[in-house]
């Protein structure tokens, strides 16, 4: 199996540890993933801002970079959703179709492709899981409160396998954190307020660590946690699934 790592632009620049954890996690599960240097971004920042036509060269760069791999795995549900859903505006060549079908969110890849049901990790903390909307409602990686009373999903199922990890229940299981790409600056007031409310929910329910499958949401939440100097860590799920004590 020929697997490529897609590390989205902002993860590459600001959260290299998430990329490293992703690589290690895959390695431990017997997958030797490679990181093609030509990759940059999925094009979502421009597209969500209403300029998807500008993103077309970025889409082509993505397709060129990854077309020869069996699977493309990214530690970010939002970027994966973008590739799958919004690469529909370029000609649907076999290569384009291939990367759209084969780009996977990390946990989705572990559970759906590798069939992983347990992980060898230990993390003795109370953890709050932030459901990132594009992973949850976009890729349907978890049930959502609009459609079902169930509170189940790929990420929570794996987290429950981590030794000594306690998953806390939140008042609002799946409310958006308010990052939203350019929204976080164009609608800064509402975005900030949404993030503050999300963080407060985790604090109120005793979380020591906030985790999730999307670094963009986590970056936003971490920014708030650090501004408010809260005793809370924000970590990507790959960092928890590779944790040992």
């Amino acid at each position, binding site marked *: 199996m020929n697997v490529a790592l897609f*590390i989205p*632009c902002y*993860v*590459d*620049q*600001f*959260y*290299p540890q998430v*990329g*490293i954890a992703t690589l290690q996690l895959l390695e431990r599960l017997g997958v030797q993933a490679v*990181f093609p*240097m030509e*990759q*940059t*971004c999925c094009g979502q*920042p*421009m597209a*969500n*801002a*209403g*300029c*998807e*036509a*500008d*993103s077309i*060269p*970025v889409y082509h*760069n993505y397709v060129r970079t990854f077309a020869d791999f069996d699977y493309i795995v990214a530690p970010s549900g939002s970027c994966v959703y973008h590739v799958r859903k919004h690469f529909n505006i370029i000609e649907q060549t076999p290569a384009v179709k291939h990367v759209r079908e084969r780009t996977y969110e990390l946990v989705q890849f572990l559970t759906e492709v590798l069939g992983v049901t347990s992980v060898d990790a230990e993390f003795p903390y109370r953890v709050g899981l932030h459901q990132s909307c*594009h992973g949850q*409602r976009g890729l349907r990686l978890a049930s*959502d*409160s*609009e*459609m079902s*009373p169930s509170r189940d999903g790929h990420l929570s199922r794996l987290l429950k396998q981590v030794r000594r990890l306690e998953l806390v229940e939140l008042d*609002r299981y*799946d*409310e*958006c954190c*308010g990052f*939203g*790409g*350019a*929204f*976080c*600056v*164009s*609608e*800064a*007031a*509402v*975005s*900030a*307020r*949404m993030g*503050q409310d999300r963080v407060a929910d985790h604090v109120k329910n005793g979380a020591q660590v906030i985790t999730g499958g999307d670094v963009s949401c986590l970056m936003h939440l*971490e*920014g*708030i946690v*650090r501004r408010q100097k809260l005793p809370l860590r924000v970590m990507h799920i790959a960092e928890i699934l590779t944790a040992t004590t």
Partner: protein
Amino acid sequence: MLQRLRLYRISETIFLQNLTHMTHAQAAKRFTADVDRTTWHDGALWFVRQKRDRMAYSLPEWEELRELASQIKNHTLSRLDEYLEEFERNATANGIRVHWAANAQEHNEIVLQIIRQHNGKRLVKSKSMLTEECHLNPFLIKEGIEVVDTDLGERIIQFNDEPPSHIVLPAIHLKKEDVGQIFHKHLGTPEGASDPQFLTETARQHLRGHFVAADVALSGVNFAIAETGGFVVCTNEGNADLGVTLAPVHIASMGIEKMIPRLDHLGVYTRLLARSATGQLSTTYTSHFHRPRPGQELHVIIVDNGRVEQLGRPDFRASLKCIRCGACMNTCPVYRRSGGHSYDYTVPGPIGSILSPNVDLKKHSTLPFASTLCGSCSDVCPVKIDIHVQLYKWRQIIGGQKAMPAGKRVGMQLLAKVLARPRLYARLGRVARRMLASTPSALTHNGTINPWAIAREMPEPPKQSFREWYAANQK
């Protein structure tokens, strides 16, 4: 970089000055500035959303119902002309007088004409978002007609001279203390009295006189049934029934999208509507009107006002499936924290943000961006409108027509250029991280230059990007 940021600011200022009203972001900023009220507003609507959830969860066939409701509406919209004509034929045969209005002006004039034909002076009105959309009240008042909204929430905001902030809960932005204040001013209740029961009773007594004196009663329409030529009005307060039962003339205003083909289909929608709207099993009153009662005149005004144009847009046609339950507002994390008035459109919230650009793209060009595209609206919507997909599509139209600040457009073009060139991207990324690391925090965290920093720290730039680490450690 600073220069570019400044340019961006200037172009945005010019763009905003060209708009004669506040952008959503500006209005939302004002709303959120009152932290406690924002908390209260968010909580009040979240409470309604949770009531709706309990109702939805209690029906195992919920998703099936949504699918059915969606398909019936899709079908109806695909042959709307036929169903409207069938409705007109059957309604006319029942003795209902059917009028057609191409736009708001025509609608308002038809209403006025009917009132004048009866030498009427006083109109009582139950809830109708369409008449809000047509700005009927100011039009009639200018013509010397007394207009009294009889829905409690509508009456409150009518006193307060403001538009509704929610389509189902028009006065949800007001606390009971605010309502007490308004009633004190307009109905002479004791200062400081804010007991909801007392205020409701006061309103009831006040409205009673208006009901009795009304010459004409106007209601909205929730569903018009082609097969029977009748229509259905769903309310909770009974005010619609009281109004139209007492007045010698009943006018019902409906948008063309209110059609359903058959009476059999009605149950699908009445089961979804109240559950989605307020978490009730059904509305307190579900009143069927099929013919005028003896001695009464019954008019139906069928209004286009831009709907046909929306019907002609394949990407946005589905927005006409809306049954105006308001669930997408209650669920929207942005709406809950910015208030209905921040949208500056008759229908606020997610659905308003996909309807309004059809009406005036320039004026409402910031609304499709007043969303994180979280998708909660689409999943809560009882008729499965793909709201967040349409928000994304409106964004592309706005971007394509340059109806956005030039600075934003240029910025996005530059960003795209960099991201399409891997080596340039890697180099610039390194430079940007170094700059961020070496620029004093007072500058990087200045909220005017960098809105991110109003409430958030910037990520700490690491020494190595992932690709730099990978190049050094792998291979």
